[in-house]
């Protein structure tokens, strides 16, 4: 499988937060979700891919090219959607598009207008009149209209109502009908990724916890629940995190099949959702 993005040993140190040893690939032709709690480093990773901030160490390759040495040609092929799109407030949408078009060799005005129509946005509307959801739509229309090979989005669904979110995810699915297109988006709304993502990369406290196919994760991870104090967390095979209460022990495992055969009927073994995984790894009493 070839990759749209390859990241190796990426490091960025801030005073109170350090992103370190970040290594993962974003396979071409698929949707990859970058998940993690707030402050985990998702935005930092995306800014480093876009070279908006300086890295301390490591390597980022986009379309097989170094992202520093080939910055202009890489960026012409990326559609970047910010969490809060910012454009000159008093310009009409068509004016913003005309100002940006020269930067993109594959700009397609017809496609842009068709997308606005799709989203029921008028090209003559002034940017500041748009709601947050409409701004996201406009931003996505810009990205899609220059026929970007890689759509990079930072928390695109945050603050959107379910209708807008569903529509946005639908557009992304439609995009990768073309297997040369790739999507990477960060989100802390795991349910959006649960259905639509092909791969999941989980980041926590500046480090990658895992990066794998979503189906594989949802099939092999699980939550084991037992009542009383009879079980020690260490007894759970594939332990990745746990939470203890007065009445029960809940443990996250990356090997639910092993847990099932170990405990049989004496424990409830359920599939884990991405939300469970995020919760136990980041907020559980401890993680292995």
């Amino acid at each position, binding site marked *: 499988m070839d990759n749209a993005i390859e990241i190796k040993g990426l490091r960025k140190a801030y005073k109170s937060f350090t992103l370190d040893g970040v290594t993962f690939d974003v396979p071409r032709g698929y949707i990859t979700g970058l998940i993690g709690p707030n402050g985990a480093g998702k935005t930092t990773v995306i800014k480093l891919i876009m070279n908006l901030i300086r890295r301390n160490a490591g390597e980022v390759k986009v379309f097989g090219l170094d992202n520093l040495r080939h910055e202009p040609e890489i960026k012409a092929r990326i559609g970047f959607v910010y969490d809060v799109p910012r454009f000159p407030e008093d310009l009409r949408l068509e004016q913003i598009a005309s100002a940006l078009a020269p930067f993109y060799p594959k700009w397609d005005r017809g496609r842009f207008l068709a997308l606005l129509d799709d989203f029921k946005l008028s090209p003559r509307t002034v940017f500041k009149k748009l709601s947050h959801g409409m701004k996201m739509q406009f931003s996505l229309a810009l990205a899609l209209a220059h026929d970007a090979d890689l759509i990079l989005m930072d928390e695109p669904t945050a603050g959107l109502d379910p209708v807008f979110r569903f529509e946005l995810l639908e557009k992304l699915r439609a995009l990768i009908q073309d297997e040369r297109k790739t999507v990477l988006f960060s989100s802390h709304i795991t349910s959006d990724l649960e*259905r639509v993502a*092909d791969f999941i990369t989980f980041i926590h406290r500046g480090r990658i916890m895992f990066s794998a196919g979503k189906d594989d994760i949802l*099939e092999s991870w699980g939550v084991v629940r037992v009542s009383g104090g009879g079980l020690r967390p260490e007894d759970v095979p594939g332990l990745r995190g746990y939470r203890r209460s007065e009445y029960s022990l809940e443990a996250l495992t990356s090997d639910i099949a092993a847990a099932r055969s170990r405990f049989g009927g004496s424990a409830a073994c359920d599939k884990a959702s991405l939300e469970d995984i995020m919760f136990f790894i980041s907020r559980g009493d401890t993680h292995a």
Partner: protein
Amino acid sequence: MKIIISNSSPDPIYEQITRQVKAQIISGDLREGDPLPSIRKLAHDLQISVITTKRAYEELEKEGFIDTVEGKGSFVAMQNKELLREKKMKLVEEKLAGAVEEAKLLGIGLAELREMLALLHGEKE
């Protein structure tokens, strides 16, 4: 081809797809040579991961239900009549096994189960 995905089902999504496609092939709703939607199209229509539909098609291919021709797509495979009957038999067996399992949980014995079966079988004739 008709497929309905349930999010609350305990079965993995790829299994829901393979089960429904198989049922349609066995029932004759899908016939030999019928084209299936592409992996990416099906993923889009069902709003699920491409990997999931890919895996479903791979399973169907492995079990001989469909053929994939590079560059052309996937089609319902030539069904050997004998094999088809065997597959249907297996389906019946699976369903019976499920019924037996449920009966055991309720403490229904073999004799009583036989009676129920005879009754059901008679009714349908």
